[in-house]
């Protein structure tokens, strides 16, 4: 379809602003741009129709099943959108006097209180704007803690080989060396590898639990104890918190700090890639190192974003927690785990789980054998799902399983949807044996066929009318 720029007609415009009602002021011509401003010229109907067409070419949670593992694509409640759009929240200047922002501060305090209780932490910041940003903040707490103690020899962060790519990237941004440790055959932390990696140079460990293959690490207390014994701190990557809310608390597992993806676990929408919020919680002894805003709170602390973070995202998460409450929070998690196990069980016998155990909120299918038998890859299966209107699972992650598809159905899918999805997986398993070529060519009924990614990277066209 055409780009906005290709629909532009010189002289066309929308009527938005009144004429200026004060004398105009001419800035020095030396400050003016000479480069023409080549933005599109459109009427309102051009614009609304354009975006309606783009909207039809977009698949959100509200369009259909979205079992994207590790992303917790649960229903995004509409009421939360309405509450976040209240003028009493949207119209507040971050640097307005304190007496006029009482409601904003109350919302943040409530969210902090509830999220601390859910995570087993004592204090919290909402500055981080996303999960990776939360990781950065959390590991910076660890860095400050060791430095304040004069413990400069602690230069290493331990990360399991099954971790999200953000974990090692984060540790590097915080100036740490990364020690990768291998997973045990059951996908959990290998205690011997951990022990071998620990030492006087250990700053900390970054871990998700349940881990990235969807299994709860039953040695978790031993793991955090070993790290603490070596003088390191334990960071909990909250990407998988949706499995255990109200059931187990990371604080009780022995973790010292944590980030939570409010845009996963706490139902705030992903918006096509953001904005999210990566609330970071910590135990009391780390609270003094939490970031603050220079303009709102003064100097003397680290700071990871301007002002108080993605405030309206926090408001949505607060609405979600208040709606569910003390019974609804564990109900959400237990049903997320139930849905995952049910779906895994319904698919079993065709595509096989990488680990045939009770999973948590997500599970990984290992298509290695299927690929050997049929030549049909995890990618082919993923692309075939698109023809059924299902968003594919996360592909080729974690890296420790080669033909991986990672499914996370979430608690907000019904049994009917799970049955429907399982039937499609079973159908595709058969199709792979009957007509592999059809699956290599999938999708057949999508907006586009498979795009040429190599061409895109080799000769990057990254804007309209690019002049090289």
């Amino acid at each position, binding site marked *: 379809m055409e780009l906005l720029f290709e629909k532009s007609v010189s002289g066309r415009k929308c009527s938005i602003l009144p004429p200026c009602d004060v004398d105009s002021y001419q800035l020095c011509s030396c400050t003016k741009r000479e480069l023409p401003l080549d*933005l599109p010229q459109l009427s309102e109907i051009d614009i609304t129709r354009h975006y309606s067409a783009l909207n039809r070419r977009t698949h959100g949670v509200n369009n259909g099943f979205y079992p994207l593992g590790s992303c917790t694509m649960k229903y995004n409640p509409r009421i939360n959108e309405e509450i976040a759009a209240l003028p009493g929240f949207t119209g507040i200047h971050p640097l307005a006097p304190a007496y006029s922002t009482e409601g904003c501060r109350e919302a943040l305090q409530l969210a902090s209180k509830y999220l601390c209780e859910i995570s087993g932490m004592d204090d919290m910041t909402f500055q981080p704007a996303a999960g990776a940003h939360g990781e950065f903040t959390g590991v910076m707490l660890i860095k400050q803690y060791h430095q304040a103690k004069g413990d400069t020899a602690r230069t290493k962060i331990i990360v399991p080989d099954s971790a999200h790519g953000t974990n090692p990237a984060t540790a590097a941004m915080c100036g740490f060396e990364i020690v990768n440790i291998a997973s045990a055959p059951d996908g959990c932390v290998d205690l011997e590898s951990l022990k071998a990696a620990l030492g006087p140079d250990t700053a900390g460990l970054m871990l998700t639990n349940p881990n990235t293959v969807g299994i709860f690490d039953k040695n978790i207390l031993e793991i955090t104890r070993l790290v603490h014994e070596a003088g390191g701190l334990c960071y909990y990557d909250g990407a998988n918190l949706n499995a255990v809310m109200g*059931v187990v608390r990371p604080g009780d597992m022995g973790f010292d700090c944590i980030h939570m993806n409010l845009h996963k676990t706490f139902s705030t929408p992903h918006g096509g890639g*953001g904005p999210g919020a990566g609330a970071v919680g910590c135990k009391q002894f780390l609270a003094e190192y939490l970031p603050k805003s220079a303009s709102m709170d003064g100097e003397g602390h680290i700071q990871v974003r301007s*002002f108080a973070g993605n405030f309206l995202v926090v408001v949505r998460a607060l609405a979600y927690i208040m709606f*569910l409450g003390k019974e609804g929070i564990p109900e959400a998690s237990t049903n997320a785990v139930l849905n995952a196990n049910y779906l895994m069980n319904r698919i079993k016998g065709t595509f096989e789980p990488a680990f045939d155990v009770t999973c948590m909120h997500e599970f990984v299918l290992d298509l290695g054998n299927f690929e050997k038998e049929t030549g049909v890859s995890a990618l082919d299966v993923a692309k075939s799902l698109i023809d059924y209107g299902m968003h594919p699972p996360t592909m080729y992650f974690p890296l420790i399983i080669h033909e991986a598809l990672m499914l996370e159905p979430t608690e907000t899918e019904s049994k009917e949807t799970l049955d429907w999805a399982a039937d499609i997986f079973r159908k595709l398993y058969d199709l792979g044996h009957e007509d592999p070529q059809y699956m290599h060519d999938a999708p057949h009924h999508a907006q586009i066929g498979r795009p040429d990614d190599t061409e895109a990277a080799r000769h990057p066209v990254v*804007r309209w009318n690019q002049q090289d």
Partner: protein
Amino acid sequence: MGSYVPSTKEQRWEMLHAIGMENIMDLYKDVPSEMILPEGGLNIPEGMSELELTRALTEVAEKNIVFKTVLRGAGAYDHYIPSVVKSITSKEEFVTAYTPYQAEMSQGVLQSIFEYQTMICQLTGMYVSNASVYDGATAAAEAAAMCKSRKKTVTLVSAAAHPDTINVVKTYCYGTGDEMRVVPAKNGKTDLEALKEMLAAGDVASVYIQQPNFNGLIEDAEEIGKIAHEAGAMYIMGCNPISLAIMKTPAECGADVAVGEGQPLGMPLAYGGPYLGFMATTKKNMRNIPGRIVGETHDKDGNRAYVLTLQAREQHIRREKASSNICSNQALCAMTAAVYMATMGPDGMADAANQSVAKAHYLAKHLCEIPGVSMVYDGEFFHEFVTSMPKQDEVLAALEKAGILGGLPVAEGVLWCATEKVSKNQLDRAIAIVKEVLA
């Protein structure tokens, strides 16, 4: 209690039995039992219905005071937001989609980002834009990180930049163990002589300035670019995007990286977020810019298609060797900015900029006619300026009582801002109140 779980009690039993379990807690049999919370053990209030929730949070929102007139900026600007911006960006599909990993069912989001990237390039004059970062301050920090090399690791930041930006850049530098040094300001602007001296050490990777700066003043951005480049440092300009509609682009000023806070492009004040970090660079630096980038390509039938591209830069490929860990960004805010720019068009953008300038100058002129009020700096300003005045707290309190959020108290006085959104009547009313208090 509220719930978004669709399965009925009977269905849950059915599903449990299908996997050979009797009790929902059997699912957690691998979790050490001493860690499991007892039923009802979570110490938060009971859940509520949607109606109760609306009541409860509306009450919280109403504890805030929404000022009808906002004459305060300092990093968060109260511009008019056209109606189509809100309606388009609240479409459920856009709101509830994830990152467009699967291009075959995400062409809408991908094309919207490609269009956003193009508009940011048009606004800044740069060659390539990424799909957004978290906000203006992190954009500056990410830019500083991308400019570092093995030999040059120091970042210079102008003291006339936003205090939050300075603090965020400092934090990111502290993370990697590199140094950030603050270039002092003179008469409200970056001190060029001091800058030259600080560059002489030869260890500077990049220089960051904000245009217009925190005091509202217009920096000699072209000259600063020349000074930085002569010393072999990269040049990062943090820009107000509304000002770019009429002011010299970062490309014209010789910037290597253009960044800024995109909030003025259609995002509400919202107590500080979500906002938008925009970031664009030259062709030469295309493969160093962090974050996602959408590129154009073709599918196997030759149809035009958009995909996430140049991913070899990113954390999920490079892991600890990536220059940034960024993953989620501010996609819906980027779309907001694109819809805003499309709605305003080139003339509307320039109009918003020119009217903001005109109104700020009208306000400054009339405030300074009041005895005791004077401008702190004499440089050319855009839509913010600093005044000194007696009884400053009383003046601001009187304005607030009348529903006007006055300028921000800063070390040197009061930092005022005016945008196209305030009418002459609103300005006259504010001026009259200041006059009254100081009479």
